[in-house]
């Protein structure tokens, strides 16, 4: 009886006043977010702001920043290293992206369409995953061993034993960029491969059956059924890999330190070297802002190229 009365009173209250969430309930979502937003603030937002700020100062090893306006940016565009570095960046990013996309695509179609459900396909894809789970330092050491310029290097040893060459070849002076790209793509392929494989796997079996009944060639199945399905995963991989390649310096630094000379120095490695090897923090920050700007422009271009608006637009028309 008492509860009934309480209910009635509550109902009346609800009718007259708008319902207000108790404070405790209102505070819960923020309580859960708070620790992580603190981490984001300290490790992402503040450094980003600091970088932007630094880019307009002459901060260096003396750690006494002075505001210098756009001087750093002017210096970048008059930097005689810039054309070569931009060229290196473009070659590295475009080749790495193109080759790793192609490989990821070929491997996924081969294992998820032609060898669908076969044990061999699974084993093959697991093999490709290995490079991406090995710690980078170990991975790079492995490549250094393979292309070691002395007689002890794997390739040199092999070629010497076969009698193809008589003296060990210094691979890193001859094809540093090729080695850097090779090491990069082999560890990147697996990411795209996983995404593309699962996208192909989501194609209903009935479509393949219908295609068989309709007498479709393998080419038609790939061009008209599989590839269109991969449009959005391909967009995602292209954008994320491209940003990754434009802003990555880790492998290059470990493999070649940007050398020989500046042959493998990309823009982001250059920013790192300026900031942390030469302690020109202000200048390094300015260069890294350029990297961010390039990534941003490329992303926008790609989104437009892939017609991203079409994906978020509702597709079904009811009538």
């Amino acid at each position, binding site marked *: 009886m008492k509860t009934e009365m309480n209910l009635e009173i509550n109902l009346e209250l609800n009718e007259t006043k708008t319902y207000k969430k108790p404070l405790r309930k209102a505070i819960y979502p923020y309580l859960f977010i708070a620790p992580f937003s603190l981490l984001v603030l300290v490790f992402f937002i503040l450094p980003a702001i600091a970088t932007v700020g630094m880019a307009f100062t002459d901060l260096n090893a003396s750690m006494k920043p002075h505001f210098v306006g756009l001087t750093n940016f002017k210096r970048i565009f008059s930097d005689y290293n810039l054309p070569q570095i931009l060229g290196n960046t473009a070659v590295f990013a475009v080749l790495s992206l193109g080759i790793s996309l192609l490989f990821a695509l070929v491997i996924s179609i081969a294992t998820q369409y032609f060898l669908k459900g076969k044990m061999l396909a699974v084993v093959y894809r697991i093999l490709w995953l290995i490079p991406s789970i090995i710690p980078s330092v170990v991975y790079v050491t492995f490549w250094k061993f393979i292309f070691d310029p002395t007689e002890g290097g794997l390739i040199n040893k092999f070629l010497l034993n076969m009698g193809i060459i008589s003296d060990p070849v210094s691979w890193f002076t001859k094809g540093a960029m090729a080695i850097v790209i090779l090491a990069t793509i082999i560890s990147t392929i697996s990411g795209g491969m996983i995404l593309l494989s699962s996208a192909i796997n989501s194609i209903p079996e*009935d479509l393949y059956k219908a295609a068989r009944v*309709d*007498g479709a060639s393998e080419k038609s199945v790939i061009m008209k*059924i599989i590839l269109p399905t991969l449009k959005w995963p391909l967009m995602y991989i292209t954008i994320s890999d491209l940003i990754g390649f434009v802003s990555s310096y880790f492998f290059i630094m470990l493999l070649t330190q940007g050398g020989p000379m500046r042959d493998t120095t990309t823009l982001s490695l250059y920013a790192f070297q300026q900031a942390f090897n030469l302690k020109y923090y202000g200048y390094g920050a300015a260069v890294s802002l350029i990297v961010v700007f390039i990534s941003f422009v490329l992303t926008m271009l790609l989104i437009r190229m892939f017609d991203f608006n079409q994906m978020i637009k509702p*597709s079904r028309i009811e009538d």
Partner: protein
Amino acid sequence: MITLRNIVKNYDGKKESSRAVDGLDLVINKGEFVALLGPSGCGKTTTLMMLAGLLKPTSGEIYFGDRLVNHVEPKDRNIGMVFQSYALYPHLTVRDNIAFPLRERKMPKAQAYERAKEMSKIVQIDHLLDRKPSQLSGGQQQRVAMARALAKDPEILLLDEPMSNLDARLKLDVRDEIRKLQRELGVTTIIVTHDQEEALAISDRVAILNGGKIQQYAPPEELFSQPVNLFVASFLGNPPMNLIDGVVQEDKGVQAIVTSGFEFRIPEARKLEAKHIGKPVKLGIRPHDLMLTDGSDPNAIAMKVDLVEHLGSGKLVKVMDAEQKMQSTIRFVTDNEAPVRHGDTIQMKIREDKFHIFDMTEDGHNLMQFR
């Protein structure tokens, strides 16, 4: 003409446990509309897939005319197929979907599009040719699938549950249209369905499958009036057939089935062979073949009304025998005007030419001889 001869299909090679189709024989005449009907897992879709060439039979032969097609690829069988999911190519327009099988046969683009337009007119979707499948309603998608299947002018049309994704009212329309289209084009059509109403309504003959075997293959009315065994009898019909356990007895030349609730005299014209006397049987009566009568009728059975359900077009009445000795209740259908209420005691009788008696073997053969 399509002939299936002793078809066996094991999904896992030689393993008996993976058997989906178990010695199936079927003959389909040219221009005929045949339904494969059965509960899920009865092997009906597997049979269709073998007809399409998407699956190969483990043993047995499939003939199209007198050509053995066991190892012929689907594309070389000249078949059109509609899938349950419609399987429209999601990234092609309706026009390209319909033209797809033609383009794959190297038909010039203009000609293929012309044919696509023609087909789309037949199934009344010619105003949707530039849309993508995702911009169509379920019924429209179904029509596109039909048009695509028919575009290459197939000899055989295979339909795999083509209407199971449509709502009840649309189903009726589409059903009629498919039937009309099939008559006009004269294409041999095989439909797989679990919906008995659909199968009975649309086809010339229905093959009822269970456990990978054909139970009965006959025109719809024959299936209904002369089921060969207990499975066919109980599978067909809604509400389902009443099945009452009893024993055949003979007294002074009059045969009767004695159940725990009542005694039913078998009319002279439908007497059983002497060897069945004294054996337990199941008496099968469809709910429509029981009717109300009054106490003066010598065949009247007194029953107590347990439940009355309104079906709209009539009433479904559940009755028990007065002493409640019977294990099962009996359902029958009356018209809306019949004065039947819960708790009443009523008199009912069985239509003398419309009952079935099944023996107690595993298959439950129908003992009534149809002459």
